[in-house]
């Protein structure tokens, strides 16, 4: 499978990357080169093979339902949460107005 300009434009838009027409042109052959190369995976017979889910056999641990049990992953840290915000106002993150 290979991609054309329109497809790359669509992927870039899905990924929220603004690309100029020139960048787009340059990306098409580059991505096609990589895609053509990864497509050799298609040769591998994977009949009956499960896709990997956990690289080291391990299952999910669950944590106890306790508020702020670990301060590093608890709430009540508004200042820390907003400290790096480009636009923090009245305790909120500000973004360009969204019309829903």
């Amino acid at each position, binding site marked *: 499978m290979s991609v054309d300009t329109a497809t790359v434009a669509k992927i870039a838009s899905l990924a929220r990357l603004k690309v100029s027409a020139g960048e787009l042109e340059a990306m098409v052959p580059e991505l096609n080169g990589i895609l053509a190369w990864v497509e050799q995976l298609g040769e591998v017979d994977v009949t009956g093979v499960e896709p990997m889910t956990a690289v080291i056999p391990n299952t999910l641990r669950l944590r106890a339902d306790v508020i702020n049990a670990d301060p590093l992953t608890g*709430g009540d840290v508004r200042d820390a949460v907003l400290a790096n915000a480009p636009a923090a106002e009245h305790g909120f993150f500000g973004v360009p107005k969204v*019309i829903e």
Partner: protein
Amino acid sequence: MSEYRIQGMTGEWEVVVGLEVHAQVTSNSKLFSGAATAFGAEPNTQVSLVDAAMPGMLPVPNAECIRQAVRTGLAVGAQINKWSRFDRKNYFYADLPQGYQISQLYHPLVGEGEIEISLDDKNPEADVKRIGIERIHVEQDAGKLMHDQHPTMSYVDLNRSGVALMEIVSRPDIRSPVEAGAYLAKLRTILRYVGSCDGNMDQGSMRADVNVSVRRPGEELGTRTETKNVNSVRFVMAVVESEARRQVDLIEDGGRVVQETRLYDPDKNETRSMRSKEDAHDYRYFPDPDLLPLVLEDAFIEECRASLPELPDAKRHRYENALGLTPYAAGVLTADVETARWFEVLVAAAAEKAGKPEADLAKQASNWLISELFGALNKLGRSLEDSPVSPAGGAELLALIADGTISGSIAKQVLEKMLETGDSAAVIVEREGLKQTSDTGAIEAVIDKVLADNAAKVEEYKGGKEALFGFFVGQTMKAMQGKSNPQVVNELLRKKLG
């Protein structure tokens, strides 16, 4: 069961509905972080570094959320998947800090189950239908955007971001607005019984995505639309009705239904299209590599099962079979877990006071609760949960009726006073002198006077107009201001009138 049909210009149409209900899981902390979930906090205070998707933050699942989803699954008779996992649903939006929602697409926690709905309130056993549940999965809620606080900016509050939701997906088995409403109401009932969701639809704890399509009866499925985030039973019914009508009109006008996302406008009672972005459907789901497969032990599932309370259908049957209630009463009393709990405390207290089995008192208690207390509370605009009268207080009142201390009609007055003052029934009866008399001498004297004052009617009665008996009872009761024992009045009257 009468079939719901939409009358179009070209004939009849059938509506096909499936519901995806998002129910907030009752938990102290969020699905993947320790931040609190309580409703109504200051903006961004219940947000952890994890919920704000700071670089390098990782999700660790909350056991209680998994447990509640499993219990919910068991309550709808669903298969619990002992191997499930979380997937990422990728899209960009300001209320979604990670740029993806952690959800379950490929391997949900709960598989197929079903819910039985009743379509006849008067007799819940008479007209029942089973609605299939396709799956229940666990996922994160998003944050909230506020649009009206700044002229050029929207504000983002992440307090809800990461709160656990169960998405309960029905099969497209629903065929009418009434069925849709009954399904949502029944689901809410079950969730509240199980305790896995508080069911507060006005706080957003439960909201439904309503999938609607229309077709000629028995034909292939039509194209569906999805109306998002409908937050009441009434609105869900309205959406089914208005959206089905819109689709029928559209098709009959030669148009085509487009698969799209819509919003319901309650003011206009219509749905409208949410301008969908061309890539809105490419969520690029893939297994979340930060989370390993969730493997459940049999013992965990059995613990969940053992922790389930008596569920609404079972309770309703028990009320009918063991307590002798009518199907209607059993249905009313089991429709909400709080009502059933209240009723059961009431019956137990009444039975204890009377020294009789519960079955002997259940009917009286049920009648009083449904026709007296509900009515009175309704007038006050209050619910059972904030009723000034406790079940024990109600039981005391019932005991006073049962032992003949007051009559049924006086009991109404006593209840009103109880609601007004918060005093107990016995205190009110004593203070207001409402005790009824069984003193035959006193009653006989009144009867004699009534019969003497209405000699003509006595003659008519004796001439065969037996319906007048009630009149004499009424006159006697009235003369005694309701405080005579009606049974004694009846007996004495029959004797006197021969």
